[in-house]
């Protein structure tokens, strides 16, 4: 089996994996980072969104081998430190941006990608950027509100 090496949340990691191992499997099963969720496994729901070299991707639709040498950030790596939350995570908590929480890691990672590109998105731009992330609880209202709130918090920092 080939050995795959990459940087995950700032730390170099290396492990054996088959060619067909998906990035999400590698993160969850090999590295034990279970914050990244598998929702649909068909590239639709976005629960598995992580950042690869600074861009949001669906970790269920990429092979671990394709991320060889890449810089990967998962939901576990977003917060600045132990016991702290990222402003987007805080905003989700304060605005009830989650109910069951299953979609939340993907929502937060997609939101982080959006806010990096567009620091003060309109409501329409937020909704459009969330096109590939499904939530079956919230009706999206509070997710959108949380991202607007997060944009404000991050601008103030």
């Amino acid at each position: 089996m080939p050995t795959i090496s990459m940087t995950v949340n700032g730390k170099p990691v290396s492990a054996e994996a088959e060619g067909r191992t998906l990035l999400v499997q590698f993160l969850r099963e090999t590295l034990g980072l279970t914050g990244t969720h598998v929702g649909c496994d068909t590239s639709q729901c976005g629960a598995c969104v992580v950042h690869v070299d600074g861009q949001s991707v669906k970790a269920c639709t990429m092979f671990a081998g394709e991320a060889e040498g890449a810089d990967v950030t998962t939901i576990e790596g977003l917060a600045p430190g132990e016991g702290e939350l990222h402003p987007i995570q805080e905003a989700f908590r304060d605005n009830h941006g989650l109910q069951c929480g299953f979609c939340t890691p993907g929502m937060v990672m997609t939101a982080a990608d959006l806010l990096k590109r567009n620091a003060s998105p309109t409501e329409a731009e937020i909704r459009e950027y969330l096109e590939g992330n499904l939530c079956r609880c919230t009706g999206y209202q509070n997710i959108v509100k949380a991202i607007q709130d997060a944009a404000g918090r991050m601008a103030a920092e």
Partner: protein
Amino acid sequence: MYEFELVKPASLAEAIEALKAEEAQPLGGGQTLIPTLKQRLAQPGSLVSLAGIPELVGVEVKGKVVNIKGATPHARVAELTASAFPALAAMADNIGDPAVRHRGTIGGSLANNDPAACYPAAALACGATLVLTGPEGAREIVADDYFQGMFATDLGEGEIVTEIRFPIPEASNYQKFVQPASRFAMVGVFVAKYADGVRVAVTGASEEGVFRWTEAETALTADFSPAALESLSVPAEGMMGDIHASPEYRAHLVGVMTRRAVAAS
């Protein structure tokens, strides 16, 4: 997924070599192929990843032509063609969702030739030239000869789409009626106006895959306005029908989307 070997060549030459292996298949961004593999609808011996090959990524504007390398992801196409060819950029920026656009590639889309994909409409409407590279070297083919029906193209064994050359139109626009679940085109129409005439290509509609609506082209070449299309329609016969749209509805949408594209050009 069936078992296979993932091969990561560092150069185009290495990729062409790796594709000579039995049951080898190229892997672009994987946004169609990986879901297909999960459903066990494909069983490659090896997948040759094209995503990490630097010489296959990038956009170059040369006078009135935009050259896009085959492994350029949609998001990069959108970014890099925004000033030279805004209609193409807007189309690329509306494929799938952001995460899909970060991985999926123009060459992958054109190689797959899904009957509801966006890029085939752009390539056909612009009379783009595709560069296909394989064991015998590189060859050029115009879009009209390249597309050969649903999921069918002129791509040969071991060949990959390495570059697409779009002549930049004087005026152009793409209108997509989005299938709300998949984000593919229920019907998509790309209209491109050149000095020597107008070309109209339709995706998402026909059982034969992407096609040119020649009656509309003639009418629009004479008079480039939505009014020129008032008396024209495409027959429902040969249109796709499914739970999302009947053949009659798709035929109707072809007219609507074409008029909208002309109005927005």
